[in-house]
C-alpha cells in the first residue's frame, strides 16, 4: 500500500530471500522438467499437447504480458488479447492473403502487434488505472468490430485460413510435439525477457513511477515515456503469444479478439496470480482443463469459472501462485514464533504484503 514497499523488500527480507534464492532454481528445474516431459507422460499427446499444452502456453504468454503491466507499471490492460490478435492477423494476412512464407509473416505479425500496443499507449498512457481498464476494454471492442467487418483485410467473420505451420526440413513444426517444444521455448524466452526487463534499470524506474510518479517526475524522469515504453514492451510479449496462437489454431477469425477471449485471459491472470509472472501458466492450465472437462460434470461452466474468479479475488488476491506464498508465510511465521518470538519487527509488514494488493492500484498522477 505504501509507496516504497517493493524497493524496501530486498533488504527487509534479506535473510529469507537468500534462502529462497538458493533453492528457487530447484523449483524451476522441476517445472521445466515436467514441462519437457509432458509430451511423453500423457497418454494421448494428440489431445493433451494442443488442447492443454500449447493452448496453456499461449494463454499464459498473453496473460503474462498483462501481469507484467499490472505488476511493474500498475496498469491493468484488457487490450492484450487484442494486441495478440493483431499480431495473429498480421501473420495470417501475410501468409494467406499475400502468400508469403512464415519467416516474413512472423516478424510482420510481431511488429503489427507491437505498433498497435504503442498506439494504445499513446491514447491511454496518460490515464488513471481504472480509466485505462475501461479504455483498453473499449479499444479491444473497436478492433473486434473492425475485424468482424473488414473483408479486404481480415476477411470479416470467415477469417483467414489455412495458416500452415512452418516445415523447416530439420524441424517440422507440423509435428505436434515439436510444435509444443517451440511454444514452450517461446514461453520461456518471454518469461526470461520479462524478468530481465523488470530487473534492469528501466524496470526499476518503472516500479518507482508506479509507486510514486510525482517523485520520479521530480527526479527528472519522463514518466509518460516510461509508461509508453512499458506498454509497448508488454505488447511485444503479447504479440509473441499471438504468433503461437495463430499457428496453433491454424486460422484467425474475430472470435480470437472477442470479449470472451479477453475475459479468458483476465481469468487466467487473476486465478494464476496477477502479481506473478510464472503463476499465469497455472491459471492457464486450470482454465484449459475447465474448458475441456468442466462440461462433463456441470452445464454451468461459466458460473463455476465466475465463482472461482470471485473467490480468488476475495480470499487469495495473489492468485493460486500466491496461495503457495501464503502457506509459506504461515509456515515461516510459525517457525519464527517457535524459535524467537517477537524478533525482527520489520519482517511482519513485508511478510503480509502479497495478500494485500496483488492488484496494483493505479494512483499515478
Amino acid at each position, binding site marked *: *500500500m505504501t509507496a516504497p514497499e517493493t524497493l524496501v*523488500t530486498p533488504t527487509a527480507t534479506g535473510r529469507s530471500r537468500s534462502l529462497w534464492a538458493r533453492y528457487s532454481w530447484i523449483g524451476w528445474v522441476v517445472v521445466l522438467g515436467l514441462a519437457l516431459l509432458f509430451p511423453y*507422460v500423457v497418454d494421448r499427446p494428440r489431445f493433451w499437447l494442443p488442447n492443454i499444452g500449447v493452448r496453456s502456453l499461449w494463454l499464459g504468454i498473453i496473460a503474462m504480458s498483462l501481469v507484467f503491466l499490472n505488476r511493474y507499471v500498475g496498469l491493468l490492460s484488457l487490450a492484450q488479447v487484442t494486441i495478440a490478435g493483431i499480431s495473429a492477423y498480421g501473420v495470417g494476412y501475410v501468409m494467406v492473403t499475400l502468400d508469403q512464407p512464415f519467416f516474413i509473416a512472423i516478424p510482420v505479425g510481431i511488429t503489427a502487434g507491437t505498433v498497435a500496443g504503442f498506439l494504445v499507449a499513446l491514447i491511454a498512457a496518460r490515464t488513471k488505472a481504472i480509466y485505462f481498464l475501461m479504455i483498453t476494454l473499449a479499444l479491444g471492442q473497436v478492433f473486434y468490430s473492425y475485424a468482424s467487418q473488414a473483408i479486404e483485410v481480415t476477411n*470479416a467473420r470467415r477469417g483467414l485460413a489455412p495458416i500452415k505451420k512452418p516445415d523447416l526440413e530439420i524441424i517440422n513444426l507440423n509435428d505436434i510435439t515439436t510444435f509444443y517444444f517451440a511454444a514452450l521455448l517461446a514461453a520461456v524466452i518471454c518469461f526470461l525477457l520479462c524478468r530481465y526487463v523488470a530487473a534492469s534499470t528501466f524496470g526499476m524506474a518503472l516500479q518507482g513511477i508506479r509507486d510514486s510518479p510525482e517523485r520520479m517526475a521530480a527526479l527528472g524522469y519522463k514518466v509518460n515515456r516510461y509508461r509508453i515504453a512499458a506498454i509497448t514492451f508488454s505488447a511485444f510479449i503479447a504479440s509473441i503469444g499471438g504468433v503461437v496462437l495463430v499457428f496453433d489454431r*491454424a486460422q484467425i477469425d474475430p472470435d480470437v479478439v472477442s470479449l470472451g477471449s479477453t475475459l479468458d485471459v483476465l481469468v487466467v491472470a487473476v486465478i494464476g496470480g496477477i*502479481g506473478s509472472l510464472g503463476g499465469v501458466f497455472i491459471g492457464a492450465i486450470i482454465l484449459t482443463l475447465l474448458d475441456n472437462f468442466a462440461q462433463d460434470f456441470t452445464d454451468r461452466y461459466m458460473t463455476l469459472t465466475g465463482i472461482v474468479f470471485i473467490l480468488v479475488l476475495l480470499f487469495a488476491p495473489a492468485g493460486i501462485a500466491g496461495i*503457495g506464498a501464503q502457506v509459506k508465510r504461515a509456515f515461516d511465521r510459525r517457525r519464527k514464533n517457535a524459535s524467537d518470538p517477537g524478533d525482527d519487527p520489520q519482517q511482519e509488514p513485508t511478510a503480509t504484503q502479497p495478500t494485500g494488493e496483488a492488484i496494483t492500484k493505479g494512483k499515478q498522477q
Partner: protein
Amino acid sequence: MMLNNWKGLVPTLAVGAVVVLGVTGCSTGGSGGDGGGDAGGDTIKIGVLATSEGNLAFGMGEAKAAIAVAMEAIGGTVDGGEIGGKSIEIIYAGTDGTSGSAQTQVKKLVENDDVDIVFGPVSGDEGEAVVQYALTVPEVTFVNGSASPVGMTLEGAENFFRFHGDSAMWMGGLGDYAYDEKGYKKIYSIAEDYSFPYDNAGGFFSEFCAAGGEVNGNSWVPVGTTDYATIIAQIPADTDAVYVGLGGADAASFLSQAVTNGVDLPLVGGSIAVDTTALSGDANIASAAVGTITGGPVPGAGYDNPEWQPFVDAYVTQPDAFPSPSIFSILYYNSFQSLVLGLQEVDGDLSDGHAGLRDALGSLDWNSPTGQISMDENRQAIVDNFLIEVLDEGGTLVQKNISEASGVTQGTTVYDRFEGCP
C-alpha cells in the same frame, strides 16, 4: 502489494508441479477407463458437437431431440444403442458457437474421447473450422450437423459429408417465385454483414436478378444491430418488397421496428428471419411478419410428405422440444438418420479406414421427412427446398407451405458482400 521477485516463487512452482502432476495423472487414469473405440471394434463412438452456450445455446437441446428421435426408432436412446451387432455410444460436446470453441471440442472428441465419427456442428463459423480440422484427421468420418456455408463441401475433405442444403440452396426457387408469382420487380436488401447472409442473399438474388428483377439498394448491417429505424428510412419509395437477411434477435428487432415505423411493404425473408425460434420469442411482430415469403429447409404447415408428420410427432415428445421442430432439429435429424442408414448398410463395419461406410454415405438416397436426399460427388446433399409464406390464422402466425423446389443442387459459388445484383 505484489508478490516480490523471489519470495513465493518456489511455492508457486510447487503448486505448478502439483497441477502438472495432477494433469498427467488424470490423463493416465482416463486412458485406463475408456479403452479406445477403434481397438475394441465392438463399439462405435459418435461424438456430437452442438451449441450449449451463447445465443444458439438451445442447439444442444435440439440436437439431442433429433438424435433421440432417430435412435429411439431403432430401439436405442439419446446416449446410444445398437446397429448391426455393434454398440453405439454417443458422446456430446457443447460449444458456444465460435470457431475456437469448436476447435477445442472437436479435438477433444477425436483425440481424447477417441470417437470414430464426429457429428455436428451447428453454426457456420464452427463448420468452417471443423472442415479444416477434418482435413487433418482423414481416419475420422465427419457428418455435418447444420452448418451451412457453401464452401464447406468444396474444401476437398473426403471424410466430410453434408446431408442438407447449403445456405444458397435454401433460397432455391424463391427468386423466381418472388418475381413471377408475387410480381416484385424492385427489392431492397437489408442483411447482416457476414458469410451466412452473403450466401443466403446471394442464392436469392442471383435467381431473382436472372429472372429480371432489380436490387435497388443494399444495407449490410453489422451483426447485433438492434436499431433499424434509420435503415428503414433508407428504403426508396418505389420499392416493391424488402429482403430481410437477418436472423435471431436482429430479425425480431427489425420486425418489431418495422411495425412501429409503419413499414407496409411486403417482406422477403432470409432462411432464418422467420424461423420458429424468431417467432417464438413473443415480440409483437405479427403485422410485419404476415405476408412474408421465405425459403429454407423447413417445410411449412400443410406439407404433405407422409414422412413429415411422424417425425414431428416423435420430436414433440422429446424433453426441451419447441412446439414444432426448428431448423436445427430438422437438419440434425436428417443428417443423423443418414448416418444411421449408412451404418446399417454396412452393419457397423468400420474396417479399412471407414471405406465401406463412406461409400454407403456417399451413395445414400432416401426419403427423409423433408423429401428425397441424395448425394453429389462432393459429398453434398441434393435436397428439396421449401417456399413458405407467413399467414395470420386467428391471431397466431403460421408458416404456410407454398411449394417445394425438388432436387436442388449446390451452385458452388461462394458469395461475398455485393452491391446490386450478386
